[in-house]
């Protein structure tokens, strides 16, 4: 007996209920609040904000809760929300030199003006499970330190907090201040900056389009590409000139009033790399730059972005383009997790119409193969006539 499959509507409704049940988990365990996610899973929140390209910790936390911790799904939720927002203006370029710096390292020198500031990092932790965290209570008294989220308030209050390190660092410090060795940062006055959320990227791409695409690109994908350039599929010789993480003010100029006002602060990670470059003979050998900037605390992503910013300038700098990470079409067309996840998962949609068509093609190919196989001479070599060899002596 043949029954055609119907009742999709009921199935969807049931599936959603099952999701809701699994999301809640064991009702005997306390419900997870959005606030808890925001405060205690802050790096997940940061990644969702960064790739969702919307700075809103509360909504990002909500997205994580709703997606049961599936960050790519949460990123999608945030993107889909972002697209509905009215754009009422464009902020001034963020001045990262005026950041309240919570962490800042330079790797080209043991010490640099302004100092190395380790800040919060897993870099020098030993990766051993901490059984103490199984318990409810924190085991260290940390009340002497300023909390992460309080920085925004500080910034607004402009209260000089003893622990918030507000070093007035210049944008180009350390090796980047060596204007004799390092290419100048590219001018910002390059006409209108692209907006990849409003107009598609056209290839060959411009640097502003690339940076925007990379900034919202999938961390894993960018990191894998960056890794490939370091391992051999590319010729990358980078140094991190500076990596900083902190809070920067967003300034909006109100056109009607012609005044600039700070409207809040965002947490950012900025990475600047330098790469020895000598292929272009019209300029002396020098360091060229790579630039990465992401919302929240995301060092892997910021470094990968800076590296790819630089590899994607290969052609411009006279280098042979031979590896995926140097190809802007390859990188930019595949770095978006929302797009990638969509297409990869679309394979779960029904495909029986085209499968049926392919089945018919396959049976035709098999019939042809059988015919060829039956022909004489298949697979076996003929006893060939042998030509005489010349000159035996």
């Amino acid at each position, binding site marked *: 007996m043949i029954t055609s499959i119907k009742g999709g509507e009921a199935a969807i409704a049931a599936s959603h209920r099952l999701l809701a049940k699994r999301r809640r988990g064991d009702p005997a365990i306390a419900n997870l609040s959005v606030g808890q996610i925001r405060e205690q899973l802050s790096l997940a929140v940061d990644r969702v904000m960064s790739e969702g390209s919307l700075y809103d910790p509360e909504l990002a936390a909500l997205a994580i809760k709703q997606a049961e911790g599936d960050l790519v799904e949460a990123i999608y939720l945030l993107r889909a929300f972002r697209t509905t927002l009215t754009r009422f203006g464009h902020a001034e370029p963020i001045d990262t030199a005026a950041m309240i710096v919570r962490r800042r390292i330079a790797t080209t020198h043991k010490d640099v003006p302004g100092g190395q500031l380790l800040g919060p990092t897993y870099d020098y932790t030993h990766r051993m499970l901490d059984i103490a965290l199984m318990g409810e209570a924190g085991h260290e008294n940390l009340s002497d330190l300023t909390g992460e989220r309080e920085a925004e308030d500080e910034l607004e209050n402009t209260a000089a907090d003893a622990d918030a390190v507000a070093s007035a660092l210049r944008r180009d410090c350390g090796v980047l201040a060596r204007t004799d060795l390092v290419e100048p940062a590219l001018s910002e006055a390059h006409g209108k900056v692209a907006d990849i959320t409003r107009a598609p990227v056209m290839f060959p791409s411009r640097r502003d389009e690339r940076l925007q695409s990379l900034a919202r690109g999938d961390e894993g994908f960018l990191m894998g590409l960056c890794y490939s350039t370091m391992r051999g599929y590319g010729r990358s010789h980078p140094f991190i000139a500076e990596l900083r993480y902190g809070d920067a003010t967003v300034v909006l100029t109100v056109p009607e009033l012609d005044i600039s006002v700070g409207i809040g602060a965002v947490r950012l990670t900025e990475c600047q790399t330098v790469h020895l470059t000598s292929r272009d003979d019209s300029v002396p050998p020098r360091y060229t730059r790579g630039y990465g900037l992401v919302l929240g605390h995301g060092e892997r992503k910021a470094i990968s972005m800076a590296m790819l910013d630089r590899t994607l300038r290969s052609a411009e700098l006279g280098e042979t383009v031979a590896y995926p990470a140097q190809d802007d079409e390859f990188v930019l067309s595949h770095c978006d997790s929302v797009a990638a996840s969509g297409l990869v998962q679309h394979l779960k949609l029904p495909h029986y119409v085209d499968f049926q068509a392919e089945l018919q093609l396959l049976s035709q190919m098999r019939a042809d193969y059988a015919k060829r196989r039956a022909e004489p001479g*298949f697979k076996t*070599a003929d006893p*060939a006539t042998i030509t005489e*060899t010349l000159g035996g002596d």
Partner: protein
Amino acid sequence: MKARAREILRVERLSKTFGGRVPACSAVSFSLRQGEVLGIVGESGSGKSTLLRCLAGRIQPDEGKVLIASDDHIIDLWTMDEASREQFLPTTVSLIHQNPRDGLRLDISAGGNIAEPLMAAGGRHYGSLRTTALEWLQKVDIEKRRIDDLPEIFSGGMQQRLQIARGLATHPRLVLMDEPTGGLDVSVQAKLLDLLRSLVRELGIAVVVVTHDIGVARLLADRLMVMQRGRVIEEGLTDQVLDDPHHAYTQLLVSSVLQG
């Protein structure tokens, strides 16, 4: 009377079949002496390139032998172990590809391309590598000042000449050429053929040149082998084969070039 030159290459009943189809090469045998140029002609798919790759150590034949003269003895290319073969081949046999991009490193200077096989053979004196590279550039008619340029920016003809310089700089005993004038303009082809002819004469190397172009065969080759469907159907002195072809297929090949 000139004494007969030394035998450099002998191929005995070489066969190769890919994936259950008609054999690419079937029981091909021939021999080649120093200073001699053997042309292998036939249309595409006749097995000539497969044969060449078997000689170059790139494709292992199913049956048959490839014997190459070393300094004091005969090497059986496909019975020796891979390490010995890889030691032996670079200094003895050169393969010139139809597409120079397959035989050059495009991201390395012209000089570096010529120097690489020399360094692989143990060259450790920069000055003399440089001198050799300059000499070879001159020989293949590339301006000396291009020595540090990347072949990427060379024309197709220049790239091919550079590939030839790279292939010959180590003075290989045996040079294998796969459609060396393949993708080039007619005027560029003629120039390259002249160059090849004079180099081959000057160096007295043994050459196997594979081509589908009867004109190229006539200009370069002393002897010809005509291949069809993996088999040698006719062979002899070049003039003899081209002026008085016996096999119907050879007659067709020759007449088609006359008409073309």
